[in-house]
């Protein structure tokens, strides 16, 4: 995780006053620190943030009328530079750009290498940052610096930026910072704060670097009258804005409204155009694209903004989609902003800037939708997922993963398991990889392909085994690997199975299909230390006899007297003399008691849900029933947003969860 250096404490210096006619001195002082100045200017009939040279570039005398679906610049013939309504550009364009390069792959004598791209973070000065936008910068910092691997690109850009904030004297009709607690008074995080009066600016330095700039202005202290009027105009604005969104209890009210019919009504209006997420100053979701030369040996990966409103955002290999309906995607966005963001990052994800209202082409007003879905008088009702993991089952400490650290490995063995699945043995001497724990996964990079997350199916002293099913282009290439081939691995990642917790207890292992692969290291660990576990019961389901993985190992399990093993296939031909049906049948009439046992389950979600119900009937408790959810994991470290499930990012907080932790999030469609 990266951390931002603490700025030196500012001098105890009174506010200064910068006459309007001398505003260009501020730009000169900023440039004197080696920074390029980014500030408000008019582009394409809107105030946007771009490089500016001086006062003449500012939108002096302009303001903007905003309303749901409306933004229109208008002349007010005033003298002020910062009385414009907030435009579509958020500062994330500079701290979290729409596109950045991530890695470069190139051929080498021993195979392709994958190297991270060093962030290019030019020193910038942001001029005109509003209170809500400053709050958004703080929120994005919390998101981007969260573990297990902070975003080094964001950290470099944010640390290279000096923030000159401006307190608002006017508000648009779409503003609601007062409700979200982010304005109009400027909060923490600015280096310099300006308050604009007709005759000039009250200037406060809020950090050491800000003090350097303010000192360079060589202007007098502001008078009491000037500071008084600056304070009064913000207070008056607050009074005018009121409190349009009742936020008390809002996260809980939204959780209780997860099945509200209004989601479908919104979906009839919502175009899923993604505008709201693009203009939002806190939305951070991204996707990674790959570009390669024609022979596929040299390639670059770029990270680009994405949106949870995109149909493809929840799509996974095999063409499944976790949020196929617009209603699912709107619910995801709104509940994330106002509810689950609190669980993940300790704050709201909305700062009340109102951009999503003005720039929605059909005028959907988030304030009205919140009142319709989760009105203040709504009963809290059942909350469909826990706010925090149950006591005693907090997520295990996460492995620290260096961002974009890829380790070259060599394929030393390829074993075909079924017609679409192979097990690769990848030799490595990398200590971090070899310290992997059962249940963790790695990202497998290869030129010209995305890097899919693959569960580790065996941990050896000098190698990892990955069992890979051909479900898309990247896995097609991986399953075609030959001994001597090389792949770069990133990891290990994710929360492992809690095997230590199961010691001394009975163990139930239920695997379905390719779900046997992430459970194979559990089997290895339990059988290696067999006396320290109670009864061990293993139930395995597959689609057909030909789809069974690790067939020799299954036969060995069947021959052991110290485990109970049963398997079943969904369908079979006449040459199969084993069981036919679903995996839950294997323990439906069992007489053993599950209370006190620990269960490890992996397979398709629907199979795991049926299994959890079946095991609960045998007395297994939800907090000792563990599943692994390998959703649409893309970045592997909780930064891209793809694998969000209610309050969790599956890659960061899982993929292993107890059923108690998941609550209804385990079975609620479209989350």
């Amino acid at each position, binding site marked *: 995780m990266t951390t931002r250096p603490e700025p030196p404490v500012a001098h105890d210096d009174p506010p200064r006053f910068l006459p309007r006619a001398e505003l260009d001195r501020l730009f000169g002082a900023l440039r004197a620190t080696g920074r390029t100045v980014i500030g408000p200017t008019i582009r394409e009939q809107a105030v946007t943030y771009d490089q500016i040279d001086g006062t003449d570039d500012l939108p002096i005398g302009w303001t903007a009328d905003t309303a749901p679906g409306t933004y229109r610049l208008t002349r007010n013939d005033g003298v002020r530079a910062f009385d414009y309504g907030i435009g579509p550009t958020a500062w994330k364009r500079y701290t979290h750009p729409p596109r950045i390069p991530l890695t470069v792959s190139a051929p080498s004598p021993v195979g392709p290498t994958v190297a991270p791209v060093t962030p290019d973070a030019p020193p910038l000065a942001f001029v005109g940052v509003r209170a809500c936008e400053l709050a958004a910068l703080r929120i994005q910092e919390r998101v981007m610096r969260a573990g297990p691997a902070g975003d080094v690109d964001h950290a470099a850009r944010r640390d290279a930026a000096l923030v000159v904030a401006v307190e608002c004297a006017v508000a648009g009709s779409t503003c609601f910072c007062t409700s979200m607690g982010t304005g109009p008074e400027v909060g923490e995080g600015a280096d310099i704060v300006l308050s604009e009066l007709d005759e000039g600016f009250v200037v406060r330095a809020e950090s050491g670097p800000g003090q350097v700039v303010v000192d360079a202005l060589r202007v007098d202290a502001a008078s009491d009258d000037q500071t008084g009027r600056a304070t009064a105009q913000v207070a008056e604005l607050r009074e005018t804005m009121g409190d349009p969104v009742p936020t008390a209890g809002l996260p809980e009210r939204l959780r209780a409204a997860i099945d509200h019919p209004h989601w479908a009504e919104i979906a009839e209006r919502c175009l899923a155009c993604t505008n709201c997420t693009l203009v939002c100053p806190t939305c951070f979701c991204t996707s990674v694209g790959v570009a390669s030369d024609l022979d596929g040996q040299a390639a670059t990966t770029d990270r680009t903004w994405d949106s949870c409103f995109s149909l493809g955002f929840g799509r996974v290999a095999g063409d499944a989609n976790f949020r196929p309906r617009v209603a699912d995607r709107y619910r995801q966005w709104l509940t994330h902003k106002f509810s689950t963001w609190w669980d993940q990052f300790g704050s709201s994800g909305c700062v009340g800037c109102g951009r999503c209202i003005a720039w929605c082409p059909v005028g959907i007003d988030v304030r009205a939708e919140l009142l319709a879905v989760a009105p203040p008088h709504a009963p809290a009702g059942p909350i469909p997922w826990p706010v925090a993991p149950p006591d005693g089952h907090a997520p295990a400490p996460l492995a620290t993963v260096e961002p974009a650290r890829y380790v070259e490995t060599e394929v030393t063995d390829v074993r075909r398991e079924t017609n679409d699945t192979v097990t690769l043995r990848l030799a490595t001497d990398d200590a971090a990889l070899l310290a992997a724990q059962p249940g963790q996964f790695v990202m497998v990079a290869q030129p010209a392909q995305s890097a899919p997350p693959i569960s580790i199916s065996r941990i050896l002293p000098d190698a990892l085994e990955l069992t890979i099913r051909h479900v898309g282009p990247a896995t097609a290439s991986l399953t075609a690997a030959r001994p001597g081939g090389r792949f770069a691995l990133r990891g290990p990642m994710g929360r492992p199975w809690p095997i230590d917790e199961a010691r001394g207890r009975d163990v139930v292992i239920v695997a379905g299909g390719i779900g046997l692969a992430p459970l194979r290291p559990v089997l290895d660990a339990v059988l290696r230390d067999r006396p320290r576990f109670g009864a061990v019961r293993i139930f395995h389901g597959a689609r057909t006899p030909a789809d069974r993985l690790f067939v020799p190992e299954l036969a060995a399990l069947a021959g052991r007297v110290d485990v109970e093993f049963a398997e079943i296939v969904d369908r079979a031909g006449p040459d199969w003399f084993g069981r036919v049906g679903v995996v839950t049948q294997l323990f*439906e*009439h069992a007489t053993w008691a599950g209370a006190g046992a620990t269960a490890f389950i992996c397979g398709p979600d629907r199979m795991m849900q*049926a299994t959890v119900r079946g095991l609960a009937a045998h007395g297994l408790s939800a907090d000792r029933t563990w599943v692994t959810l390998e959703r649409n994991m893309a970045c592997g470290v909780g930064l891209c947003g793809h694998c969000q499930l209610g309050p969790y990012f599956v890659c960061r907080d899982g993929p292993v969860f107890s059923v108690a932790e998941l609550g209804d999030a385990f079975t609620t469609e479209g989350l």
Partner: protein
Amino acid sequence: MTLEADPVEELVALGIAADLSGAARRRLATIARIEELPAGKVVLREGQPTLELGVVLDGRVALQTHLPGRADLTLMTLDRGDIFGWSAALGDPSTSSVVAQVPTRAVLLERDGLLDALAADTEFAAVIYRRLFQAVTSRLVATRLQLLDLYASAEGRA
């Protein structure tokens, strides 16, 4: 000698007859027997009268359906505690063939006696119908899961 085991006691142990009163258990005893079914034994044939309702005690039976021009397809297998031939309780033809997949021991209830008991004894009927309803529900859920063909879709797992 397994044939000397008490079929009612076996059904009580499996929970199927546990809720029956003494009188109902005595009525059950008049229609229940334990049979050894050698591997390959066709117990019921699809479309034919369901002459017996069975409960697997040990071993395994296969529910099969006939596909013209192809080998009979095993839809599902049943193990200890599973009920087969529930159409007997309705007097209906069997919905699938039932074939012992391995040497199997089962309790069999002959159809006519079962229908008489169900008609004559409401307490007996309430318990047996409840167990049958549970079995049919379980079979329906399992069949739905099979129809979903869950393992065919990767769901993001590779």
